[in-house]
């Protein structure tokens, strides 16, 4: 097994675990950023540079900005709540054995599948991502436009000024 593969997977999984279990939300957000980085690198490794760079800009950039904003906007008011939170912090590990057992059972059940391995197929596609998006995934483009409209309207509505019923 190649070393860089392990490193990439590790770069994806370890920050993810950190993001899940980190005490501080800000640290969790940063860990998520690192996981996004790992994902982007894995994508490059799989031969998907465009999606990788998109993930890099959006996942690493935009989403982290949104999260850090939200965290900093909400953490100021909840001082006593933070005390409370530290108090039962370790309760989140309570169900961990269940998780491990479930993953184990899943792996065990599907071991034949994993052992068989998957064949690597050579790329034989014509065209670039842009061409494909435009030519055969036009509906997805419209969908993206619609969903961005939903997002814009939604943010405009949810942060509207004045009374909710005004």
């Amino acid at each position, binding site marked *: *097994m190649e070393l860089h593969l392990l490193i990439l997977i590790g770069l994806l999984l370890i920050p993810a675990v950190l993001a899940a279990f980190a005490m501080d939300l800000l640290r969790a957000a940063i860990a998520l950023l690192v996981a996004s980085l790992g994902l982007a690198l894995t*994508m490059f490794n799989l031969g998907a540079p465009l999606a990788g760079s998109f993930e890099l800009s959006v996942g690493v950039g935009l989403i982290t900005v949104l999260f850090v904003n939200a965290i900093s906007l*909400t953490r100021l008011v909840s001082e006593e709540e933070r005390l409370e939170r530290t108090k039962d912090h370790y309760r989140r590990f309570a*169900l961990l054995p269940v998780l491990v057992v479930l993953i184990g059972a899943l792996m065990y059940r599907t071991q034949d599948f994993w052992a068989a391995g998957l064949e690597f197929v*050579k790329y034989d596609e014509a065209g670039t991502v842009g061409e494909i998006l435009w030519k055969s995934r036009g509906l997805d483009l419209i969908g993206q436009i619609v969903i961005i409209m939903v997002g814009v309207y939604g943010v405009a509505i949810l942060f509207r000024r004045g009374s909710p019923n005004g």
Partner: protein
Amino acid sequence: MVNIFVADWIAVIILFCIGLYTMIVAKNMLRILIGFEIMTKGVTLAIITAGSVNGKIVFSQALAITVIVIEVVFIAIALAIVMITQKNKRSLDVRKLTNLKG
């Protein structure tokens, strides 16, 4: 023999489990969203892996890009709803979201 795709699929499964686990045990609404983010990472990876397994990597990139756009919009709206909750209840604890029950 464990090759790159198998490793990726296993990573997807582990990411899913971590994400779900976080969404179940977390008390802070933001951490639930982080759990969702972890799952989305897994999904994006799964699509790309699927594409490279059957040789349609370019096609799968187109799909992945759409997924990432939708994910961003989702997170933006979700964070807006979280902020409204914060404004209404001065708290982000999901255990306090129990007005509707029974």
